[in-house]
């Protein structure tokens, strides 16, 4: 054990200890102080975590704890992204969760433990540390979905998520055990070299690949392993939905990149074909079924499936530029989705869930600013210029075309155009429909901090446009050192 070992996982250690501390502190503080302290401490912890990830980041991989974890720019960038997006989640959820009695120590502790899990996932160089991180995150997510104990929808969603998630974990673990059996190593950076050395039948290694892939695809919710996504997004309290819709996607990207591109890089030709099918049917199914949704959370769930399909396109190119574009895509997706759920959370006042699309009719007349932010975010999700969402899609498509898969790019564009329909329908409902009379009108009353962040978040999708090229450069720099 050296200092380096500690430094590699310092952000994780700090956040994990703080999560324990917040959980225990919450039990002893008087009710009036609980919320303030938990909230403040969690935000400070996340900032410290992000800060430590930057300060101690190294461009080239530095291994720690006997090679269980590593630290490189990729993990540093994603760790910062995870911490910041979780911070946004906490700020956005405060009003919503407070009104529903969910704003308590457990919420902060679960969110922070989940962050630890995600950070371990991004930093893992070992199949077991990867799995432990994944399970830590998954257990936190199951619980956060079920946090609202009086809601049958939430319980149902949590049960579904838990049962299917456990199954997927089992499949992933089985795949990992096959990999171990084939290669004799659990270190991800050694897998690639050892697995091709194995001669004889390719069946076991194809089996291992398929099982690992199924597990991973389930965790990020790609078709045909997407069944849980809509129910969980819809059923869980929105404060939990926003959490599980953003940061875990970043961690999911990290493990897919590490395991597929790095660990199983020598089998690229095999998984590229599988990913191609998965991403195209994800795009198709996500975009088409989203049109039929009347619930905005469910719609965003299908949109998430479609976006996962899109970023997998970047992965399946099997090239650095493709990985970098996928990374930029997922980072941008996280920012935009945060904002979209932030608006939903801000519009859901006490006793009112702003989750039906028809609730939004005429929002421009009652709350023009909220409607405008939503408009920007929807444009960005649809990929309409001049938003960063457009840039994200463009760079992935570029990478796909460069990899010589032009027809795939064409299909993706067509499906995205179909997808644009349902995002624009929200805009149409907000701007061109009359104020809803049959429903209690939505009130846009976020807390002050949430209002400021929401404004920044909404404007960022346009304002950041001139500097967005830097993001790709950053991502490329982070990924290049891996290969």
């Amino acid at each position, binding site marked *: *054990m050296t200092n380096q070992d500690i430094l590699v996982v310092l952000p994780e250690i700090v956040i994990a200890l703080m999560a*324990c501390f917040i*959980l225990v502190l919450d*039990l002893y503080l008087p009710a009036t102080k609980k919320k303030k302290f938990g909230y403040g401490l969690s935000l400070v912890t996340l900032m410290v975590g992000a800060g430590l990830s930057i300060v101690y980041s190294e461009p080239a991989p530095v291994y720690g704890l006997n090679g269980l974890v590593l630290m490189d720019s990729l993990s540093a960038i994603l760790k910062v992204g995870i911490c910041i997006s979780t911070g946004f989640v906490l700020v956005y959820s405060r009003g919503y969760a407070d009104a529903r009695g969910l704003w308590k120590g457990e919420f902060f502790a679960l969110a922070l433990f989940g962050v630890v899990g995600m950070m371990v996932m991004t930093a893992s160089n070992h199949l077991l540390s990867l799995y432990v991180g994944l399970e830590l995150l998954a257990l936190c997510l199951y619980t956060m979905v079920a946090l609202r104990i009086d809601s049958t929808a939430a319980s149902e969603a949590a049960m579904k998520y838990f049962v299917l998630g456990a199954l997927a974990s089992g499949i992933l673990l089985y795949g990992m055990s096959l990999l171990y059996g084939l290669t004799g190593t659990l270190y991800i950076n050694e897998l690639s070299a050892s697995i091709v050395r194995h001669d004889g039948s390719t069946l076991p290694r194809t089996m291992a690949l398929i099982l690992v892939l199924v597990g991973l695809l389930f965790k990020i919710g790609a078709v045909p392993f997407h069944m849980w996504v809509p129910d969980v997004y819809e059923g869980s309290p929105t404060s939990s939905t926003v959490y599980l819709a953003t940061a875990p996607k970043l961690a999911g990207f990290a493990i897919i990149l590490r395991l597929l591109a790095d660990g199983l890089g020598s089998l690229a030709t095999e998984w590229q074909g599988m990913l191609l099918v998965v991403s195209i049917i994800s795009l198709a199914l996500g975009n088409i079924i989203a049109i039929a949704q009347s619930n905005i959370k469910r719609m965003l769930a299908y949109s998430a499936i479609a976006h996962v399909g899109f970023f997998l396109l970047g992965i399946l190119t099997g090239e650095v530029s493709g990985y970098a574009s996928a990374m930029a895509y997922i980072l941008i997706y996280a920012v935009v989705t945060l904002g979209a759920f932030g608006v939903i959370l801000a519009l859901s006042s006490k006793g009112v869930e702003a989750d039906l699309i028809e609730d939004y009719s005429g929002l421009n007349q009652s709350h023009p600013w909220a409607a405008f932010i939503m408009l920007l975010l929807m444009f960005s999700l649809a990929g309409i210029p001049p938003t960063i969402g457009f840039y994200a899609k463009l760079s992935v498509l570029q990478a796909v075309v460069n990899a010589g898969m032009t027809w795939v790019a064409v299909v993706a564009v067509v499906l995205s155009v179909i997808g644009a329909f349902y995002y624009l329908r929200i805009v149409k409902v907000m701007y061109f429909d009359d104020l809803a009379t049959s429903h209690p009108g939505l009130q846009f009353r976020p807390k002050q901090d949430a209002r400021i962040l929401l404004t920044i978040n909404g404007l960022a999708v346009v304002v950041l446009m001139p500097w967005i090229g830097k993001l790709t450069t950053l991502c490329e720099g982070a990924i290049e050192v891996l290969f």
Partner: protein
Amino acid sequence: MLANYLPVLLFLIVASGLGVVLLVAGKLLSPHRPNEQKLSPYECGFEAFEDNRMKFDVRYYLVAILFIIFDLEIAFLFPWAVALDDIGIFGFLAMMIFLLVLVAGFIYEWMKGALEWE
């Protein structure tokens, strides 16, 4: 090495055999005169009111879950304790950190009333 365990295996067989012999002896030596009243479930002289496989307090589940957590931890502590002299201060501190995390959970369940039986 493994031969040391042969007596243990044999002892296990003898011990289970003892249990079986007890029951068989009882069965062979004792009279067998059943009647309906005698064979009905015992309920202090009443007819049984309802199904005996009834609902019971959820806290028993809670105890079972807590037991699993702590028992696993003990299983983790055993090899650590035996090897304590070899792993030294570092091993000790590492386990104390682990226990610290566990104690946080223990305090949590205590304060949340999972250990209360009123």
